[in-house]
């Protein structure tokens, strides 16, 4: 629990600093010159004020994440005995460790940034304040490599920290810049010329940032991964592979913006220009994937580099193992048999997971995958042939899936086991499973009502892709724990499912955003879900 929260807090901290650094740089380098070409001081000040408010919020987020990090380390070092609220211990942690010192610096930097952004919100025309905020944000950013993985390396740590710092700077100016720009599209919607100018100026800036990101990423990969085996056979390598896979669509969105939309925006003067709508959508795609990648970076910070990993951990066997498809189970041991075998193993001096429990679980995954596969194929059909009314019923498969999961989830509880329904709700993991079942069913019903036009599509539509992304992230965080118990196959599977889940979530989001104007995202969504279902159906296995 501490470790998962730690990864999340690190991810949130990255988001905080990325947005804080990007704001003043974007304003000074891209927007102010662009706005001065088209407007004058009025829009300039309003845009500046809005960016400052966003940065103020991200600075507060960073300060909170830093405080959270202190308490998490405190909780980890006090696992045995001492209280987390022992002020002397926290003081020792902050003042007598290098990590604590850096966190203190970061907190001071975050508070300084918050104050500066507050002033900028009041006096947005002051270039001095903007420059001071840029300086404070960059100093705060520098604390990240100083407290990260690179700082703990036994050798060549200075080079590693420098590369990490540049990498984070590239992320900030690209993804953080996109974040601000997307937020500004709303207020600027009545001024398409300014939007077009800002986007045109931002594109080369984003390209330079992406190049920096790729260059520093390559240096890190060559230094700390070393081999293809390590890239695919270690937890760090696999998570990085997922990050790289997600980088492909991210770069594609960037290329579309730079090569197609940017030149086309040259002569934009109309309101409601369809080009601007496309820019907004691709920007959201880029941004969504970028934020997901940032959270993955949080997960990466908690994994050892393959070069410093224990010998024998770089192993491709699990990867090849799941690359071999096999028939799904067509029969399953009964719940009673599974319970009996589990009870027998509990009594054994060397308990192992019974074969019946493994077969039962694999059957569940394979056939749950069949539901997902059907859903994906129907979604694909709907994307290619929108006039086929029955293909729109793909959300109904979620209801079928929830019923299947309700029956099969836990062999010990009602309706298949001796523990009553009401009593089962007092067991934490069963309650959790039941809640997920309700969530799957609810999503199915609501999506189906939306597909058939019975209810209006509003903000709730985005809950579905949102859960998709958050759930996928949770898999990455859990996968980490699994690998530490030498359960490398679980890690491989979680990385595959997590990556496809991210892609499905982002493409569904974009499909909803374009509202039928572009079927590409619907096809991507269908394809991601189909692959996910296929993976669960014929590749999933336990051991």
């Amino acid at each position, binding site marked *: 629990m501490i*470790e998962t929260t*730690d990864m999340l807090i690190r991810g949130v901290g990255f988001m905080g600093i990325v947005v804080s650094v990007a704001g003043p740089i974007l304003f000074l380098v891209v927007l102010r010159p662009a706005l001065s070409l088209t407007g004058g001081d009025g829009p300039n000040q309003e845009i500046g004020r809005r960016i400052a408010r966003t940065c103020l919020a991200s600075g507060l987020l960073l300060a909170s994440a830093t405080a959270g990090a202190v308490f998490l*380390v405190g909780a*980890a*070092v006090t*696992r*045995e005995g001492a209280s987390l609220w022992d002020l002397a211990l926290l003081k*020792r942690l902050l003042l*007598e*460790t*290098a*990590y604590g010192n850096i966190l203190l610096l970061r907190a001071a930097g975050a508070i300084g940034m918050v104050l500066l952004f507050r002033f900028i919100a009041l006096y947005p025309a002051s270039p001095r304040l903007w420059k001071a905020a840029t300086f404070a944000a960059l100093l705060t950013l520098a604390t990240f490599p100083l*407290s990260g993985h690179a*700082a*703990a*390396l*036994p050798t060549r740590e200075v080079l590693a920290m420098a590369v990490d710092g540049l990498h984070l700077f590239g992320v900030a100016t690209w993804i953080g810049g996109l974040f601000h720009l997307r937020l500004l599209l709303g207020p600027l919607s009545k001024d398409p010329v300014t939007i077009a100018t800002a986007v045109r100026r931002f594109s080369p800036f984003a390209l330079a940032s992406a190049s920096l990101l790729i260059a520093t990423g390559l240096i890190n990969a060559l230094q700390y991964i070393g081999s293809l085996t390590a890239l695919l056979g270690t937890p760090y390598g696999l998570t990085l592979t997922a990050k790289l896979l997600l980088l492909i669509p991210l770069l594609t969105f960037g290329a579309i913006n730079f090569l197609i939309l940017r030149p086309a925006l040259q002569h934009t003067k109309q309101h409601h220009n369809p080009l601007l709508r496309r820019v907004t959508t691709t920007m959201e795609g880029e941004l969504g994937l970028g934020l997901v990648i940032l959270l993955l970076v949080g997960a990466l*910070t*908690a*994994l*050892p580099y393959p070069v*410093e*990993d224990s010998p024998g951990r770089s192993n491709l066997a699990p990867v090849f193992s799941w690359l071999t498809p096999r028939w799904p189970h067509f029969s399953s041991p009964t719940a009673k048999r599974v319970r009996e075998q589990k009870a027998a193993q509990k009594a054994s001096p060397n308990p192992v997971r019974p074969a019946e429990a493994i077969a039962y679980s694999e059957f569940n*995954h394979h056939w*749950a*995958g069949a*539901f*997902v596969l059907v*859903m994906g194929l129907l979604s694909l059909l709907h994307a290619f042939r929108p006039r086929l009314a029955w293909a729109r019923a793909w959300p109904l498969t979620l209801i079928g*899936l929830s019923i299947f*999961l309700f029956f099969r*989830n836990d062999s010990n509880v009602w309706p298949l086991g001796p523990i009553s329904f009401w009593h089962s709700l007092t067991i934490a*993991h069963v309650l*959790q*499973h039941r809640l*997920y079942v309700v969530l*799957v069913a609810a*999503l199915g019903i609501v999506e189906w009502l939306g597909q058939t036009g019975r209810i209006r599509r509003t903000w709730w539509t985005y809950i*579905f*892709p949102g*859960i*998709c992304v958050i*759930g*996928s992230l*949770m898999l990455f965080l*859990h996968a*980490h*724990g*699994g690998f*530490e*118990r030498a*359960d490398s196959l*679980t890690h491989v599977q979680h990385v595959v*499912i*997590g990556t496809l*889940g991210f892609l499905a*979530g982002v493409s569904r989001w974009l499909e909803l955003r374009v509202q039928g104007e572009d079927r590409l995202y619907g096809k991507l969504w269908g394809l991601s879900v189909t692959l*996910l*279902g296929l*993976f669960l159906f014929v590749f999933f296995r336990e051991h």
Partner: protein
Amino acid sequence: MTGTLILLTLAMPAGLAAHSTLVRSQPPAGATLTTPPGEIILWFNERLERQFHAVTVTDGQGRTIPTQNPHVDRADPTKLTVAVEPLPPGVYRVRWRVLSRDGHVAEGAFSFSIQP
């Protein structure tokens, strides 16, 4: 999303995220010694903080053996040393917990034995 939910619904693994790992030790894990060690030295794959480390040594009956002056080497911050009193023959278990420079706490254990 559904694949994710399926996995979360069907199985909810939990685990400990180890970061620093023990590269080697003196005495080595599983070693059988003929003379008792005066100190136990642990080498990790990461630089350690000088605070918040713990090494406990227990004998075959689970009794804690007194240790002295656990410290991280200034010249080699991946090295943690702890002095132990002369140990009689038997099996000993060393449990360690360290805080690395990147703020991760890791823990582990290994055993060694001393022959009569």
